[in-house]
């Protein structure tokens, strides 16, 4: 547990995914069964250990310490989970912390009322670093930037199996993953994984220079849809939806699973919010509506009706039992069109006709992002990726409204920006600033000098500084006062000398926009 606590601590401060992978790989190399399996479960989200709220952790600490000392400490530390772990009194006896194989299953199997008792007993046996790790597990906090995919990447770095092979068997495994490790170490055959995930074609964003060097005639183009990339697997009466990283999300979309009835094969597409129950072809709804369907533990009965979704397919990997991945895209596409005709909740992503780079640019200027795929290319995830050509960025003059320091795993601070609506600034997005260091420092000095209030880590400022903000698109955002939000905003220039009223009004963002098809 000490080693795992140290790993969590390092992960909390790791600056890139590559470093996170190395830290996890280092741990996995030094750790045996079943401890490493439980660690993988804790890191990869394979186990729900969220049993104690931060306030309840603090209440546990309050039973052991003076309330005033606890209050002063919390004021200083800020985080109740960390405060409780650090302030916990120690007996002076040598710590004998629980192993993960003891703590994790016990925590996951406990009720919300029993979990505090478990924690108390473990805290009494542990030093501060282990207490902090246990507290975070119990509070359901996971290290920032550690995704299930990244954990599998670490496994692929340690063992002689590639990521794709691990992902194909992953979903059928349960903690502490004994058979998986046995296979990875060559001690056992590859575990069975019926209706498993197949690695997806990756995508890469293409810059203008690379685009100019491309032989466009060899490519097919499609619109890039904003939604959730999914893999649809229908095999031997099993129907599953996987996320881009190979996580089984079927339970989130019972409506889609039901609509797969009778399908046989593996498909690639984008799951989107629908504007209504009709189709195919389906009409996309506001992309942010999809948020309500995600990140849940269970699905309320009415939700599928309230927020209808559909899957827009663009590729086919298996037709029944036939592996099509070596075939050319044009061939796969023809088969897909034949198989998917007139099925509710499914439709096809149309191919866009274009001639040369001028036609592409015209689409981009209309705010359309595109995906380019070689027409003769196979579906080979390890090969060259599909290429994304982003819509031409547009700019708006916006007012700086607030600054928020960047957390771990984020690029840096982000700045809330707004435009005028009825004479008052209304926020339209949070934009990072990747200008030169000198300019960023000047901006932060400005923020400190013009601060009008603090809301947690967020500093509100006087709306007096005009920024040029580039963005890819505008989407409706009913909960914002402005009613819309910028997609991918970024501060591209600070207009130090402009007066505040030089900022644009909301109408600048609402006219002349092309809606989504």
């Amino acid at each position, binding site marked *: 547990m000490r080693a795992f606590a*140290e790993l969590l601590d*390092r992960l*909390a*401060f*790791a*600056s890139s995914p590559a*470093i996170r992978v*190395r*830290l996890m790989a*280092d741990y996995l190399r030094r750790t045996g069964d079943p401890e490493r399996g439980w660690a993988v479960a804790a890191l990869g989200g394979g186990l729900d250990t969220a049993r104690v709220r931060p306030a309840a952790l603090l209440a546990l600490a309050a039973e052991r*310490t*003076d309330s*005033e*000392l606890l209050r*002063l*400490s919390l004021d*200083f*530390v*800020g*985080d109740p989970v*960390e*405060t409780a772990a*650090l*302030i916990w009194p*120690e007996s002076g006896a040598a710590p004998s912390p629980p192993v993960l194989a003891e703590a994790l299953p016990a925590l996951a199997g406990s009720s919300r009322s029993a979990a505090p008792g478990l924690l108390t007993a473990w805290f009494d046996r542990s*030093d*501060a*670093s282990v207490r902090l790790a246990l507290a975070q597990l119990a509070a359901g906090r996971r290290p920032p930037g550690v995704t299930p995919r990244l954990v599998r990447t670490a496994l692929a770095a340690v063992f002689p199996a590639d990521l794709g092979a691990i992902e194909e068997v992953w979903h059928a495994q349960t903690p502490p993953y004994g058979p998986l490790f046995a296979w990875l170490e060559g001690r056992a055959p590859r575990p069975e994984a019926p209706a498993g995930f197949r690695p997806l074609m990756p995508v890469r964003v293409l810059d203008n220079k690379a685009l100019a060097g491309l032989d466009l005639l060899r490519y097919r183009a499609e619109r890039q849809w904003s939604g959730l990339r999914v893999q649809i697997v229908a095999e031997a009466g099993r129907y599953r939806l996987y996320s881009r990283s190979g996580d089984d999300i079927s339970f989130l979309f019972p409506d889609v699973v039901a609509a797969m009835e009778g399908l046989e094969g593996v498909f690639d597409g984008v799951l989107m919010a629908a504007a209504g129950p009709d189709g195919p072809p389906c009409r996309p709804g506001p992309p942010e509506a999809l948020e309500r369907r995600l990140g849940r533990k269970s699905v309320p009965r009415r939700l599928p009706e309230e927020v209808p979704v559909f899957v827009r397919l663009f590729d086919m990997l298996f037709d029944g039992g036939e592996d099509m991945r070596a075939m050319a895209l044009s061939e796969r596409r023809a088969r897909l069109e034949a198989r998917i005709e007139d099925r509710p909740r499914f439709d096809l992503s149309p191919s866009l006709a274009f001639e040369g780079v001028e036609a592409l640019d015209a689409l981009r200027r209309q705010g359309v992002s595109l995906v380019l795929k070689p027409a003769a290319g196979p579906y080979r995830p390890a090969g060259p990726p599909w290429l994304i050509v982003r819509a031409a960025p547009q700019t708006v003059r916006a007012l700086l409204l607030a600054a928020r*320091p960047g*957390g*771990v795993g984020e690029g840096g601070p982000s700045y809330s920006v707004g435009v005028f609506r009825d004479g008052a600034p209304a926020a339209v997005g949070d934009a990072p600033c990747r200008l030169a260091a000198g300019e960023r420092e000047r901006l932060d000095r400005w923020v400190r000098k013009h601060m009008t209030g603090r809301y947690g880590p967020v500093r509100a400022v006087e709306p007096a500084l005009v920024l040029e903000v580039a963005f890819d698109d505008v989407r409706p955002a009913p909960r914002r006062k402005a009613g819309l939000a910028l997609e991918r905003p970024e501060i591209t220039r600070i207009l130090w000398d402009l007066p505040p009223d030089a900022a644009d009004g909301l109408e600048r963002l609402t006219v002349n926009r092309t809606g989504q098809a």
Partner: protein
Amino acid sequence: MTDALEDWLRLTPAGLWCEPGGFHIDPQRAVERALITHGHADHARPGHDAVLATPETLAIMALRYPRDRPARQALRYGETVRAGGVSVRLAPAGHVLGSAQAVLEYRGRRVVVSGDYKRAPDPTCAAFEPVRADVFITEATFGLPVFRLPDDREETARLLHSVEAFPDRCHVVGAYSLGKCQRMLGLLRRAGYDRPVWLHPALDEMTALYRDFGVELGETRPLGGAGSLVGEIALQPPGPEQRTDGMADPVRVFASGWMQIRAHARRRGVELPLAISDHADWTALTATIADTGAPEIRVTHGSPDALIRWAQGRGLDARPLEPPSGSGG
């Protein structure tokens, strides 16, 4: 009836003032006569007419303020001098080389001014020596119970493990030039690390001074243009002077008690925070108050509230060190 403490020792705008002795302790402004507990700039300022300190602290001040020419009086640990009616002795504080507690006696009452101190063993300076006192004036930099720092050997082992796990990167440890830098060297050597350690030029002179006083720090090499330093450890002062250009994907490490709190470590932007401090942590602060046996406690620097609360809970007369009321300062 004994004299009230404030009759002869009180906080003034210039700093702690001992009236019958006619000297200030760690004054913030230039004064006539100063007793300096240790060489850190927030305690040792230039411009005094006369300075009383340990020989090590005097040497550190001479190095830091080459143009400063006070009358210097060296007082070794354990020796006593008289100033006015006050007897003055210096006892090791364990904070940095030459750091001392000021032990003052006047009319049968003994006051111990801790200066900055720590209780953890440090191979680069004399160990803290608890002194019985009637009044103990203590620092409280880490005066909160969340600051119970891990064993510095464990923190050193974390650094060395990281060097092993990332052999293709350079570990750049941020450490203050006086004390922390040499302590890190000492800790690395004690842990058996015998490779040369690369020193930023700003850390060079102070490290040489430690060596002059007989502190063993192993081989160090100057950082300037040293290249990628793959697999090596470099020490740098914290803050903007840090140089990482040319280094192989540097791991930013920072050694400080503040690293105990994640939000602080995040603000520093470090990848490997090490909770190694030259100040007493909560355990040491409370143990030291008990060790002095002092019924009166005055708390200064850092977070006094929690420590005062703790001491009052043990029936001690504990208060913040403040200027006497009505003094206008």
